[in-house]
């Protein structure tokens, strides 16, 4: 077996008539930020709750370093997690919130002050958490994650409600965690949030994994051999289609051509005397790649079923 920090295999779970997890299976490796993406309701949060021993799956296992979460002793020193930054007793101060968590793991109060400092909350430490903005609650949640200096970090939608500055901070934070050799699993329903921070992606839909790949491979696959053409000539679409290309109008004066090498595109247009202002290789964004994947989800599922 690999040195997987988190190993999820064959998770199935139903809530009444709804199938929340339908064979969820992936691993998270140390030193890597693994993005966990999918539309709302794809089963991301349920999977995380199962990993953390909060929900019991109907089938399958979720292991942390080879052991179920519930068997971990002082689990916060192994796994730091943030599911809901709003889960706070409003009348308790930030410091006291971290203090009871520290005491539950046999940690000292000094560690609480360290993580408050790290999260930039030192000044707000003795304020009631109920008065915190969402951004400050996220920081308090991050402080709680780091309390036990865990090797595995699990964050559910950490970008939610963050201002642009906070998003930049969070991305750097995730990168630094991976650089320190920790395994990081971070979920989001917006792919662009993960564009600059995740190395590996687990794309899910309807309770199962659609794609389990690196960011680079996903981008390459999504970009394909497509060409972007800028022209105002109306006959361009007809000419290129006759040359064997699949042509889609993707904007005013913009066509996207598939199935024809850019050189052949230029040659064809020139041969027919069609004027154009720009030809370039198409570069997909992660968002587009993701949209494409989730659009195909139904078809993918059908193929899976046939296998």
């Amino acid at each position, binding site marked *: 077996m690999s040195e997987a920090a988190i190993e999820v295999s064959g998770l199935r779970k139903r809530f009444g008539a709804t199938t929340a997890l339908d064979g969820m299976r992936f691993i998270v490796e140390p030193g890597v930020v693994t993005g966990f993406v999918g539309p709302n309701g794809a089963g991301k949060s349920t999977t995380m709750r199962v990993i953390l*021993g909060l929900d019991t799956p109907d089938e399958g296992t979720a292991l942390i370093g080879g052991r179920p979460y*519930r068997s971990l002793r002082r689990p916060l020193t192994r796994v730091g997690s943030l599911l809901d930054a709003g889960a706070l*007793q409003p009348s308790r101060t930030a410091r006291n919130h971290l*203090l*009871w*968590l520290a005491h*539950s793991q046999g940690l000292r109060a000094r560690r609480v002050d360290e993580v408050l400092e790290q999260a930039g909350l030192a000044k707000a430490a003795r304020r009631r958490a109920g008065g915190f903005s969402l951004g400050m609650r996220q920081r308090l949640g991050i402080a709680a994650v780091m309390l036990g200096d865990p090797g595995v970090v699990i964050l559910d939608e950490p970008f939610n409600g963050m201002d642009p500055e906070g998003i930049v901070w969070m991305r750097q934070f995730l990168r630094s965690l991976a650089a320190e050799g920790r395994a990081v699993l971070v979920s989001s329903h917006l792919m662009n949030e993960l564009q600059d921070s995740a190395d590996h992606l687990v794309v899910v839909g309807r309770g199962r994994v659609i794609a389990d790949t690196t960011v680079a491979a996903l981008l390459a696959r999504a970009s394909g051999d497509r060409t972007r053409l800028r022209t105002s000539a109306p006959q361009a679409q007809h000419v290129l289609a006759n040359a064997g290309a699949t042509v889609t109008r993707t904007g005013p004066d913009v066509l996207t051509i598939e199935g024809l090498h850019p050189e052949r595109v230029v040659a064809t247009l020139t041969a027919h005397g069609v004027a154009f202002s720009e030809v370039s290789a198409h570069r997909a964004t992660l968002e587009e790649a993701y949209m494409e994947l989730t659009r195909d989800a139904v078809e993918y599922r059908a193929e899976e079923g046939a296998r």
Partner: protein
Amino acid sequence: MKDLLHAEWTKLRTVRGWVVGLMAAAAAMVALGLVPGYQGTCDATCKLPVGPGGEEVTDTFTFFHQTLAGDGTITARLASLTGRLPDPSREAGGTGTEQATGEATKEGLAPWAKAGLIIKASTQRGSAYAAVMATGSHGVHLQYDYTHDIRGSATNSPVWLRLDREGDTITGSESADGVTWKTIGAIHLKGLPATVQWGMFATSPQYAAPATGSFGLAGADGGPTQATGTFDHLSKTDGWTGEQIGGVDHASPIQQGGTIPTQEGVAVTGSGDIAPAVAGAAGLGTTITQTLVGTFAGLILVVVVAALFITAEYRRGLIRTTLTASPLRGRVVAAKAVVLGAVTFFSGLTGAAIVVIVGQRVLRANGVYVHAVSAFTEARVIAGTAALLAVSAVLAVAVGAMLRRSATVITAAIVGIVLPYLLAMSILPAGAARWVLRVTPAAAFALQQSTAQYPQVDNVYTPVNGYFPLAPWAGFAVLCGWAAVALLGATLLIRRRDA
């Protein structure tokens, strides 16, 4: 488990509202207990005699006696036992003689009216004795040293009675004809002096019955009663002295007894009792239990804090944080219960100790007679009240873990624990009140009972008067049973349920 307890303690102490709530529980008990509700007319001279067993006793009767040196036997026939009772129905109108005396009475016997033979260490109130007697409606009894009671036959007067003294041993016998004797019992009166007083006595206790026709706070009707025992066939006919033992200063006519020699013997008329002193309608003053009337208010606060201590976590989703930090869920419930129970016990102990100790002084300063209790009983009442609060808190935590919603849990806990007590103490009829205080968690209020209940003393033995249907520890066991069942349910549920 140590880390978990530490964490739950930190959680509890860092929410100011909860800490204030638990301190306020103690403060409410003290405040309600010290509110001067009772006024009385007792001063320092108002003191009950103490019997050989150390308990407070009533020792008021008419004694037709002489001295006995060494061993001996006394025999007499109780020819008749008659008496007078208060007549509340005629009090309002008041006609004839009743109006003249200001006291309405009618013919009749209190059930525990007593007349018979007695051997007593001295005429000092509270001294050791043994007596064989006929009663108003309980038949023949052999009683000694106030708290001890042995049943004889069910016959009423006329009846022959006999007492034998042989050293420390007193034997009581009865006979229908003065020929065939039946021994009721032979008892030992330790340390009985060689020279004692013996003779005939009559007395009749304060009559008390739950007020009928009144809905609401259970009251009691009552008043002094009188009994006259007419004796003949006295085994000794001369040397007698009539004396009233422990008379009342401003006695009403019915309380005034005396001895009237007759042709064949003597008629002894008396009012009072030779029995353990009881608090409440038939007795004098109140008990230390009265100082703890505010317990229900403290209990409400404790139960609310206990419910919030766990349900607030469910409401905020904080329970997930707790369970990721401590995945052994049964232990989480246990740690919460232990921490809250311990803190509540401490708070309750402080409040109960203050109110019982200071409250007694306040009541006495107001002229209310407060029955003396042993140090053990006082400690049991104080610690018991703290335990009642603590285990109720544990019960509320367990119910909270099961039902999760704050409003539901607080309602359930108050309806299940506090309401039965309040109902039993107010509008419920005595029978229903006793039933409620046997089966609901409120049974643990029995820990607050400070005086004993005696079958040979008629009284309104209701919860309102500080008498509970279960023994203190049995009542506490009922509450503990509820808490144990709830904890078990909470543990099973929290383990099975998704968080």
